[in-house]
């Protein structure tokens, strides 16, 4: 039986792990390898490293820390941020990342997803989606989420983009619900359920985790394959061993 995954997300800026609320005022929370090893030892199932400055500044991910992480840890990890072409993705995968995640560059040029899937297989290709509810009741994707100054609302509906991304070769979808991100009031279950209904590849919930029960609800009510969180793990508000014990005791299949 495939287990549900718990994924700490480490936002990286200038080689340090940072976390801001709703993408603003990011502050340093620790060294990358040190935090990565701590999460491995605590039972994290996978890690995501998201270079939040990559897209706005148009710079690609510094590869040195990727190799340091790859040498140190023995669980899978995904790198996101500033991946605009196959060669950049190749260098990141060769540095030791298991998956690459694309967000804004895929919105700007959707065939990027096809190219990455053709080069590395769909299992390497994660599409991250920043999504927010608009006043007219539609979820729409947002772009350039690393920098509030450059945030753009796009006319593209989130559900349409989820369908297109899969058709082009996304092997996994990370849905970051921006309305709930960073405020610890729970994952956006309604939006996750709507996306789950049209998502045949693994779906990762992101944005809003504050309690054990929030993780449980995402797995049981929205049937997501993995739940991602950052601040609750970085601050120690939620410890992964206790979270996993809670989930196991409440009928969620997890890796002990």
């Amino acid at each position, binding site marked *: 039986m495939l*287990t549900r995954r718990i994924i700490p997300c480490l936002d990286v800026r200038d080689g340090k792990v940072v976390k801001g609320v709703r993408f603003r005022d990011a502050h340093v929370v620790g060294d990358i390898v040190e935090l990565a090893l701590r999460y*491995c030892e605590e039972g994290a199932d996978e890690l995501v490293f998201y270079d939040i400055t990559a897209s706005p500044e148009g710079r690609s991910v510094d590869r040195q820390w990727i190799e340091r992480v790859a*040498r140190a840890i*023995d*669980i899978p990890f995904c790198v996101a941020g500033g991946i605009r072409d196959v060669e950049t993705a190749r260098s990141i995968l060769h540095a030791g990342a298991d998956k690459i995640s694309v967000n804004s560059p895929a919105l700007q040029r959707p065939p990027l997803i096809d190219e990455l899937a053709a080069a590395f*297989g769909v*299992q390497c290709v994660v599409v991250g989606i920043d999504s927010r509810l608009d006043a007219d009741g539609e979820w729409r994707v947002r772009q350039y989420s690393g920098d509030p100054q450059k945030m753009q609302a796009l006319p593209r509906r989130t559900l349409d983009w989820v369908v297109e991304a899969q058709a082009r070769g996304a*092997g996994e979808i990370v849905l970051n619900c921006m309305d709930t991100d960073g405020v610890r009031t729970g994952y956006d279950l309604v939006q996750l359920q709507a996306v789950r209904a049209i998502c045949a590849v693994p779906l990762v919930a992101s944005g809003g985790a504050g309690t054990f029960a929030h993780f449980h609800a995402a797995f049981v009510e929205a*049937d997501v394959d993995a739940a991602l969180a950052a601040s609750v793990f970085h601050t120690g508000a939620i410890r992964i061993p206790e979270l996993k014990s809670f989930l196991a005791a409440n009928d969620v299949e997890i*890796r002990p």
Partner: protein
Amino acid sequence: MSARDVVLVDAGGTNIGSLRYALQRLGIDAQVSDDGERIRRATHVILPGVGAAGPGMARLRQAGLVDLMRSLEQPVLGVCLGMQLLFEHSQEGDTPCLGVIPGCVVRIPAAAGRRVPHMGWNALQRLREDALFDGLAAPDFVYFVHGYAAPVGASTVASVEHGACWSAIVRQHNFCGMQFHPERSSATGAALLRNFLAS
């Protein structure tokens, strides 16, 4: 373990780096090579692989390694796509493979509640005893990422359940394969690699 001369076959697989680091954590400095003579001299050969079967076999052909790989007599381990290439044929791109393990690789059919690719930690179901399991206490959770798989057959040592049962570990004489990523499967993966190198 330090007397082991391990070669990672450079066939373009993007997990070569991860496997090399995993071996380093076990105290093994593996060489990466696409040179047939170098590979033949190794005590242990590992065929990594991430990507599609067609390009994977094409790279082995370009490097002139197809017949060499088939003729190896030392322990050989195929990982993920590397395991699939050990079979006779893959449905992925209708690709003839190395054929050192009987059977074919097929696409995991999509079904309600069964996500493809099969991605995440899943438990091995041991179908028979094998030295690879030495010192390991079941259940063994390991990390899978794949959209194609080999059905359970005579060479299957351990299976994994994802809608149906699939080969997770296979062994045929000196050829052995792991569909999951031992290099990314925490302490269990490290133990499986260590046991392979002890063979």
